[in-house]
């Protein structure tokens, strides 16, 4: 049964009344301006103490009695056939428990496994792997898009796949040919982005243990605890899913590359079964860079056209990128966010002899917005218009319209944006720029959160989803706390274990809005149950029992604290379940955000220093502003790293990665970290009872575009290739850019 609820949603200044159909069991949605005690406040993470004392256990920290170690010999060639493998010396080593070899295997990327060993210690493992001799018949390969396009059939593992935005097919709307013809202002340019590896500090991998009854426990560094044990892993274990427990107590970063069990996890399971011992395998740093996933690169040729007053009429483009030896995945979100009446976009995913790309925080977006925002800057310059004004003129999002103004004020746009780009005197030139971001995630799935309370008042909240560090534990506690009127820190939250109700995989900024409403409902059900107990005790109708400021009240001045109410819970305990149901009709499908950057560019050395970033973001109603701020900081930091430093470099002759270490593959460090001014705009999204949206991805979408825009303002020429290394900046200044 459903009921209709009318309430105020959106953002202050652009609010709107929504009438939604709400399931009878759902809580009433909190309207804009609702007075909430814990939701929307700064709450330190519940597992903070565990993380600062070394108690927090990551997969890498799991050490079991009699545990064996697995590892692999990886191919140094992009394309080769394994002619022979001599593993006799390895097999003969004391301590070697099992050896696998793949004679005859066709290797299609450097880093591919050709042999595997299971040994009693890491030392024996290292010795055994080093003792395996592999002979390869090296084949021709192409590891870059440009090489692959030269002679695709001969050197690519698969034919290329045309995609628009990763969804397949070309994209066309309006009348692009006529619009290009009639455009009063038209700019055309090519933008490039490099391959970025996820570089999580904890590698991929797992520990697999099979007990005497034949049940398996898998500790995995995963973003999808509940979905981790899929077909290949279960087949390797020869067990039904219900007899495989997966645990992810804490995990050291994923960013999109750690979902279901991968080949190395399956290998662990096979060795565990074969040797009868627990087996551990976490990838080496080199393998992390080679095969642990990456953001595909891009070559984006864009033409943006419009009228002299700065209104866009058309975007046309073609893009190429490689997502390794698979098909699809190298699309670019370079036609989104702004009003573009006519679009013609053809996107190619080019297959190469490299390991597959993976979802990476806001797939398609940072690269797409870097190019689109670059085209917008060029368009504004050609039209002689302020680039911020042009953006606002073509931006249909009511929230982003407010955000542009906030960001412009904070960065001091009027004062700091150079009217004439590159006009600063002296070799170090400053400028400011801006870019938009978007995402769309209001949560999904009918996930459940279980809650128990005993007569001592101990509240346990359970869901199987993992906390990647984004603060899922704390978020669940806050949503329950709001309904029960007790501080979040007093709630015991248990996550990352398949013994609890299944939870979503953490991809696409889904976890918070997918679980928050279920947690709120669990809290509500518990409150109702306590009210019912008090109703019996006070001999009154439980509906007359209310909870105000953490105190239950009944007719005739009856009062009970939460603790006193819990005293009525019988020995069996109180157990309730909150379930998330379908999304309502919301305020706006798109999550809005924009960022502004201020940079200094040394035109003699080519070094870019990002001095300040203003990041203005919406994620629906924010539950924990401390965690939200962290997410935005992290998104900006990864965005700067993408813009200025990160680039997987492959040797075209050997096909191997030249820089598979943190020494040579640079991720942003402390010395490069600018001041980051995070502004969170609360928007009641309307899609669920809390009004939440996801925030992980949107925070990193605009950063590279905003920095490139600021660099353009500082030096007067666009650097159209990421990362914007000193050499590329100098080349752009000298007019040598591709």
């Amino acid at each position, binding site marked *: 049964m459903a009921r209709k609820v009318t309430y105020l949603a959106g953002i202050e200044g652009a609010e709107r009344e929504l009438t939604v159909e709400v399931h009878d069991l759902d809580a009433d949605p909190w309207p804009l301006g609702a007075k909430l005690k814990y939701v929307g406040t700064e709450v330190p993470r519940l597992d903070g103490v565990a993380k600062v004392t070394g108690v927090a256990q990551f997969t890498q920290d799991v*050490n079991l009695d009699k545990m064996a170690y697995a590892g692999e010999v990886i191919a*140094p060639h992009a394309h080769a056939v394994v002619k022979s493998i001599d593993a006799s010396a390895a097999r003969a080593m004391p301590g070697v428990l099992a050896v696998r070899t793949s004679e005859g295997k066709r290797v299609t990327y450097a880093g591919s496994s050709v042999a595997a060993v299971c040994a009693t*210690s890491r030392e024996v493992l290292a010795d055994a792997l080093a003792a395996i001799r592999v002979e390869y018949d090296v084949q021709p390969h192409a590891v870059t898009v440009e090489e692959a396009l030269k002679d695709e059939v001969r050197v690519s593992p698969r034919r290329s796949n045309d995609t628009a935005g990763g969804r397949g097919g070309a994209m066309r709307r309006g009348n692009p040919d006529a619009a290009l013809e009639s455009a009063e202002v038209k700019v055309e340019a090519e933008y490039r982005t490099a391959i970025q590896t996820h570089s999580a500090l904890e590698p991929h991998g797992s520990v697999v243990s099979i007990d005497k009854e034949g049940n398996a426990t898998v500790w995995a560094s995963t973003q999808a605890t509940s979905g981790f044990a899929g077909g290949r892993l279960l087949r390797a274990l020869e067990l039904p899913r219900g007899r495989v427990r997966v645990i992810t107590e*804490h*995990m050291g970063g994923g960013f999109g590359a750690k979902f279901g069990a991968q080949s190395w996890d399956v290998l662990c399971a096979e060795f565990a079964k074969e040797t009868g011992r627990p087996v551990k395998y976490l990838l080496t*740093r080199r393998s992390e860079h080679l095969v642990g996933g990456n953001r595909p690169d891009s070559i984006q040729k864009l033409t943006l056209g419009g009228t002299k007053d700065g209104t866009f009429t058309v975007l046309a483009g073609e893009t190429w990128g490689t997502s390794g030896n698979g098909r699809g995945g190298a699309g670019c979100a370079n036609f989104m966010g702004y009003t573009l009446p006519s679009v013609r976009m053809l996107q190619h995913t080019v297959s190469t002899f490299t390991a597959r790309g993976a979802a990476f925080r806001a797939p398609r977006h940072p690269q797409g917005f870097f190019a689109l925002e670059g085209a917008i800057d060029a368009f504004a310059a050609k039209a002689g218009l302020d680039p911020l004004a042009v953006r606002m003129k073509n931006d249909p999002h009511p929230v982003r319209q407010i955000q542009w103004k906030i960001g412009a004020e904070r960065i001091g746009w009027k004062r700091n944006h150079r009217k004439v780009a590159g006009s600063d005197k002296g070799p170090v030139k400053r400028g400011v720029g801006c870019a938009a971001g978007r995402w769309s995630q209001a949560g999904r799935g009918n996930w459940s959160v279980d809650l128990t309370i005993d007569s001592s008042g101990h509240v346990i909240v359970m869901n199987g989803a993992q906390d990647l560090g984004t603060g899922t534990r704390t978020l669940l506690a806050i949503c329950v706390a709001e309904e029960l009127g007790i501080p979040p820190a007093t709630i015991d939250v248990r996550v990352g274990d398949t013994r609890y109700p299944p939870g979503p995989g953490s991809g696409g900024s889904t976890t918070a809005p997918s679980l928050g409403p279920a947690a709120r409902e669990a809290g509500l059900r518990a409150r109702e149950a306590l009210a019912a107990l008090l109703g019996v005790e006070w001999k009154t109708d439980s509906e007359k029992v209310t909870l105000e400021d953490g105190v239950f009240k009944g007719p005739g001045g009856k009062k009970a604290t939460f603790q006193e109410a819990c005293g009525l819970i019988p020995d069996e305990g109180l157990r309730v379940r909150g379930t998330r149901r379908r999304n309502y009709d919301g305020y706006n499908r798109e999550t809005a955000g924009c960022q502004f950057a201020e940079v200094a560019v040394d035109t003699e050395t080519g070094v870019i220093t990002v001095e300040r970033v203003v990041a203005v973001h919406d994620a629906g109603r924010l539950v924990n502003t401390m965690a939200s701020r962290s997410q935005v900081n992290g998104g900006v930091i990864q965005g700067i790293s993408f813009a200025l430093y990160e680039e997987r470099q492959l040797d075209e002759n050997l096909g191997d990665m030249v820089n598979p270490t943190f020494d040579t593959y640079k991720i942003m460090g402390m010395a490069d970290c600018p001041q980051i001014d995070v502004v969170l705009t609360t928007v009641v999204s309307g899609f669920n009872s809390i009004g939440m949206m996801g925030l992980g991805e949107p925070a990193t979408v605009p950063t590279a575009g905003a920095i490139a825009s600021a660099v353009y303002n500082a030096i007067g020429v666009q650097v159209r290739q990421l990362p914007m290394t000193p050499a590329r900046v100098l080349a752009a200044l000298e007019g040598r850019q591709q």
Partner: protein
Amino acid sequence: MTQGSAPAAAETRRKVHMQLLVNGEAQEVAFLPHKTLLEVLREDMQLTGTKHGCELGECGTCTVLMDGEPMLSCLVLGIECDGVEIETVEGMATGAGPHPLQTWFADLGAAQCGYCTPGFLMTAKSILERDPNPSREDLVEELSGNLCRCTGYLKIYEAIEAAAKDMREGSQ
């Protein structure tokens, strides 16, 4: 093309027995002589608070203090640690409770996934022991060997500065 090199039988090597001074306690440990301090701590002493990130001396997650100096434990052999005072994150809290750095890291949200956190804490502890009032520039310099992929940098500065202030005021 051939890959591989001559074998060596690690299983048959003999363990060394040593006394290691870890977190103020002398402990007898038996371990293989080629093991790094990181491996000895994590595998032979069950002190997994010190994290394993790259094993190449590049990420800083394995930082411990050796006689008060931050060292990358993946680049030090266990057998080099005779007579050395080793401190790990497990030893930071004193009897009275958590170290101010731990308190502020937790309260200000300086740990996100938390994997780099022990390394940052150890480096920060050594900084504050030498200089109770470090400038931002000093912190940048000293913490540049520790990488964080999630969020940390700004909140890490703030947490260290807040802890330093607490410690200065506490020692007056």
